[in-house]
Each structure stands twice: as C-alpha cells, then as structure tokens.
C-alpha cells in the first residue's frame, strides 16, 4: 500500500469531524484559561523568588567575605556561598527563559532544540544543586554562626569543622555512587523512591531528543 492511498482515508477524518464533536474544545472556557494563567504565574513567581534569593545571598556574601579577609575559613565560606548565590541567579534566569521565551509559533526544529537544551540544562542544574547541599551547609553554618552570634567555629574547633566536612564528603560520595556506580537494580529502586533525575534517565532522554533533532535536520 502506498502512502498516497492513505491520504484519502485521512481526509475522511475531516469530513467526519464536521459532523462529530470528538473533542470538545468548548471546554476552553474562561475558567480553564484562568487556571492555565494562574499556573504559569506561580511558576514565574517561583523563578523570580529564586533570582531574588540569589541576589540577596550574592550581595550579603560579597560584603561578608570582603570584610573577613583576615579569617581564611570565613573568607572561603563567604566565597563559596557567593558562588552559590550567582548560580541561583543564573538558574532562575534560565527558568524564566524556559517559561517566557518559549514561542510555540516558532519553527518546530528551532523550538524543540531550544526546549531540549533547556530541559537538559535544567536537569543538570537540579542535580548539581541537590549534590551541593551535602557541602554547602558547612560554610552556611560557619557564616551564620559568626554573623549572628559572633562565634567563629573554625577558630575554636577546627576538628569539628573537619568532621562536618567528612560527613558532607561521605554523603556526597554515597549519593554519587548511588547515581552512577551502584548496581542497576538498586539504582532503579532508588529512582522509584526519589525521581528519575537520580538515575539519570531524564538526562539521557533529553540527550536522545537532541540527537533525534540533529538527525532530523540532516538530509
């Protein structure tokens, strides 16, 4: 059977649609629109919130580490948190781009490539933000203790900070092992409890989509 023979059958759907209402697009009411709009506003508000938090963290930490040049542990903690604040801002801006700049009336290959790249970026960011928490709580704790009650933990007990660091590194390595090197069955089970991100399948899917688009663009 030839594809052109199937065209006639396909055209029959159009004829049929004039008589039937298989999809009730009249559901497209004001309520539905308001719901869609509200959902988008919340996502945008979340991204704006993330940018604002990033700005506050960046400004606070920049001022903090500049005024603690004489205390290496606090200086380093401030710089690490400063970098985290900048990363929050970048991630928030990218999220906004994903939400606002997605013009579905653009050419399909263009917009799908844009979406696949952003999706891939978003998954990676989410993963690295998650992993960073294992370590970030230590500089955050050091800075907060010193800023709020004037207590420099590193100066009083570097061993405690060393223990914190050991716990953080152990947690980080265990998570990395679970994500990349653990037996596949265990990884799948963990993935069921957490989400697909932890097993990397979403990332693989985003890469597959990019490969598929590149292949489609080639003659």
């Amino acid at each position, binding site marked *: *059977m*030839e*594809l052109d*023979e*199937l*065209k*006639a*059958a*396909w055209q*029959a*759907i*159009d*004829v*049929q*649609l004039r*008589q*039937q209402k*298989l*999809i009730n*697009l009249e*559901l*497209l009411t004001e309520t*539905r*629109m308001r719901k*869609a709009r509200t959902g988008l506003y919340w996502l945008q508000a979340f991204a704006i919130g993330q940018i604002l938090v990033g700005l506050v963290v960046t400004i606070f930490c920049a001022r903090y580490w500049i005024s603690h040049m004489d205390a290496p542990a606090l200086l380093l903690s401030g710089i690490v948190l400063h970098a985290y604040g900048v990363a929050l801002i970048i991630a928030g801006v990218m999220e906004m781009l994903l939400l606002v700049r997605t*013009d*579905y*009336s*653009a*050419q*399909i*290959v*263009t*917009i*799908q490539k844009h*979406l*696949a790249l952003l*999706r891939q970026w978003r998954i990676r960011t989410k993963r690295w933000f998650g992993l960073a928490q294992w370590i970030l709580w230590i500089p955050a704790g050091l800075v907060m203790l010193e800023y709020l009650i004037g207590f420099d933990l590193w100066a009083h007990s570097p061993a405690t900070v060393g223990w914190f660091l050991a716990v953080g590194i152990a947690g980080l390595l265990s998570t990395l092992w679970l994500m990349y090197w653990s037996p596949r069955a265990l990884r799948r089970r963990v993935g069921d409890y957490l*989400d*697909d991100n932890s097993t990397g*399948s*979403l990332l693989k*899917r985003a890469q597959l*989509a990019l490969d*598929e*688009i590149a292949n*489609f*663009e*080639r*003659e």
Partner: protein
Amino acid sequence: MSTDDRQAFGDLLQRHRGIVFKIANAYARDVEDRDDLAQEIAVQLWRAWPSYDPARRFSTWMYRIALNVAISFLRSDGQRRRHAVPLDEAVHDMADDDGIDHETIARLRMLHRFIATLEPLNRALLLLYLDEHSTREMAEVLGISESNVTTKISRLKQRIRDHVAPPGNE
C-alpha cells in the same frame, strides 16, 4: 483580549479543530492524554493568539503551535512512553458512524499503527504531508530545507511500504 477577538479566535478554532483532533490522536497514548493534549494545544493557541499575523494562513500557524505543543507534551512527561501506541478510539468512534466505509476504517487503523512507530518529528512531517501541505509549507513549519523534506517524505513512503508488507515479502 476583547470580546470580538475572543469570538474571532473561537470561530477559527472551531473551524480548524480537526487539526487539534488529528494531532492529539497522533501524539497521545490514551483518551485521557488525548483530551489533556487537545486542551493544552487550545490553551497555547489562545496564548499565542495576540501575536498572530492575519497575513499568514491560520491553519499553518495552528499546525506549528499544535505540533510544537504535542512534541513537547510527549517529551516532557517522565512517565509517558515515547513510542507508545496511540489510541484507536477515534477510529472506533468512526466505525459506529455510517459515513465511512470499512475499507477506509481499516486503512485509518493501519495508518495510526504506522504513526505510532514514528519518531515525534517524523510524525509531524507525516501529518503535514497527509493534510496536503506543500513542500515549501512543510519546510517552513518544520524549519528544515525543502530538499530535506522531499528526502524524508520518500523515506517515509518506503517505511510505510515495509510496514504493510507481509512478513517474508520484505
């Protein structure tokens, strides 16, 4: 959006709702998915409506948005299977109606099964081809060259021949 605008949009959407129906069928896994996708397409059309240029063909504009939404819909849900068999209910619905003969229904079922085997972008190309868009229009909607469209269409023709060929005849 003014009441007139809303009315104009509603009229055009109703007139071209076949596009939404066909795309939702080609990309959805089950009835629930199909309705969700159709609604999502309609919402995105409505959002893009203020930037619609009346000098352009409404159906082509609608195709671009609907296909983009459908492909994104298929890819965004972690639980959604990428090459799941699309629903056949639409064809079953038609079987209850006297307007379409059995041979056409059989062909439509076969066509739906074939569509299910295609990657999302090739599905988009096939839908545009079946709706008799010109090579130029297809290239414009998809964002690839006209010669690439021609090459891909001939490959699709070969694939459908292989798809319908009985085992052992290949």
